[in-house]
């Protein structure tokens, strides 16, 4: 879908469209996959999520690689972002725990009891720009 922007305004417009397109029902699983995360097994967790999401036909779930959250000691880290629940960051996620996240948090809409981390910073864009 290569599209070349013909002028600066097209980029602003495109950014607006991208933001609008976001549907409320999307559930994001953000898996920290920098070198450190991968070394701790994040790639396996990523695969499990992909496989299980597919198997369960969870169409609104996006399994997403993200960069380092900075929490090397609790890697692999997974953040679940979904409507009607607070954003929750889980640490020490292994393949088994990944399935529990899917079953209990994503499908069961219940925050798990274990491995919840306090995300140690806020978003600089949160106040205004990005909704």
């Amino acid at each position, binding site marked *: 879908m290569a599209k070349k922007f013909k002028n600066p*305004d097209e*980029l602003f417009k495109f950014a607006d469209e991208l933001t609008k397109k976001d549907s409320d029902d999307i559930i994001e699983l953000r898996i920290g996959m920098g070198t450190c995360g991968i070394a701790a097994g994040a790639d396996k967790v990523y695969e499990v999520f992909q496989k299980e999401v597919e198997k369960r036909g969870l169409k609104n779930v996006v399994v997403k690689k993200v960069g*380092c959250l900075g929490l*090397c000691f609790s890697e692999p880290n997974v953040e679940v972002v979904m409507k009607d629940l607070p954003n929750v960051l889980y640490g020490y996620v292994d393949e088994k725990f990944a399935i529990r996240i899917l079953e209990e948090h994503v499908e069961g809409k219940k925050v798990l009891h274990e491995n919840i981390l306090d995300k140690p910073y806020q978003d600089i*864009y949160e106040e205004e720009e990005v909704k």
Partner: protein
Amino acid sequence: MDNRKIIFIGCQKAGNLYDLINKKLVDENLRQKVHLRKFYTFGLYTYKNIIKVWPDNIIITNITEDEIDTFIEEVIKNGKITKLKDKIYKKETHPLIKNTKVEFYHKQFRVVLRNSGVINPEDINEYIKRNGYKALAKILKEYTPDQVIEELKKSGLRGRGGGGFPTWMKWNCTKNVESDIKYVICNADEGDPGAYMDRSILEGDPHSVLEGMIIAGYTIGAKQGFIYVRAEYPLAIERLEKAIKQAREYGLLGENILGTDFSFDIELRLGAGAFVCGEETALIASIEGKRGMPRPRPPYPSIKGLWDKPTLINNVETFANVPVILYKGGDWYSQIGYENSKGTKVFALTGKIKNSGLVEVPMGLTLREIIFDVGGGLTGNRKFKAVQTGGPSGGVIPEEYLDTPIAYETLQNLGSIMGSGGMIVMDNEDCMIDVAKFYLQFAVDESCGKCSPCRIGGTQMLSILNKISIGHGEMEDIDKLISIGKAMQKASLCGLGQTAPNPVLSTLKYFRDEYEEHIKDKRCRAGKCRELVKYAIDPTKCIGCTLCAIRCPVNAISGERKKPHVIDQSICIKCGECYNVCKFGAVIKE
């Protein structure tokens, strides 16, 4: 939909707060009305108990046991908080980040790593969705190069590659040199042991670096950029390649960017991982296909750089700051930080620290806050001895200076440097001579050998340190270390040699008694210097379990079962295995 409140209770320092609240709720038959969850908070010794309430989105801190009843009454029963009002965490401006009401109770503030952990770094749309490339678009639409420099000047941004040179001055200088060809280079060589800030930025948000470089190209009048990245960073390289490809497809790189007459492209150059190649003139030589050796400056690269053309060279983190500065404005940025050190700095916290990892904090936070609040303190609550900053070019900082605000100048005054951001925490089991030796060995190995102060001085200092660590040191050695170190600082050609003595000089400055102890008493209090350590078995504690004797690799331990064992010092190779395996603390290290 389940509309019960979720109460998150911080469990790092919360002690039994969770249990108390849980019990109280059960007693009052309210347990079914809410969800309770423990969560792991980071250090934060300024706040004892942290409770987050969702969906109200409030944070209550420092709740005492006596206030649990009030908490339940106000938060859970009637949802109207009056008595606990003062304990609600308020989003206020903080002296170090005046421009925003972003919650600062964690003491981290992410500008450079704003997208890391949030977006998929392999998808340009995700970057654009978070205001990516908007700074570039705005500039191409409205700004002259001088206006870009004006914003950078207002921001107060200084180089994050170690030197701390004002970024606007470098850009301005390169811009003002007349030349039809100019270059932009991003220094992603990152060779300090223990440092991986730049790697994480490249892996987590490669477009932020590209955007910074494109803006630089526009400002100074360059058409070509290079990223010099070490080959040991395969994931960073892969993501950069994807990012460059996507940016080209969108017309953000290449000919006529965003339909304007500005053209700029970026290529990767892989480095073989020599530390000295991070030095800018050596790096340039390496890109030119020559051996990576520094050359004297001036002329500075901004006048005569790559292929003798004016070249702007900045660090990864420096570039990653640029899009935010131009998107939010230099004034916004200059509200973050401390005195002459504006903005944030990313540190890689390692060593004897509980929460090891990458942290980004506003400049001016104190070392104590970084180590204890953000990093959670030392592993096993051991006693802090020193923190090393700046890697092989930096030094150690002892406990009495923990309250120093982090800034370029303050660290320099302490005999260390900000450096690129490695921060290694040490406790009583770290020997300062050993630490100095480690860094100096690194510098000696990595010295390119071009100039004699570094080549010969470094080797000399190292051999003196080795001598001290095996118990053959003499008191004059200390003076020798100082005078060779000072000569190297003055006479070496490049930063490597000029800063290589810092770890030795700073340990000498703060831990001279440890050096003297090694020399006079032949003693290493940390038990690190093998030749000075002796392992022995305390007969009153040894129960004769034979474990140490089984484990000893050289069979130096003898003794009958159930009788105290002894170590034959003439055989012992001081591997420490017996010390580590003994379950009764009978093996002593002296």
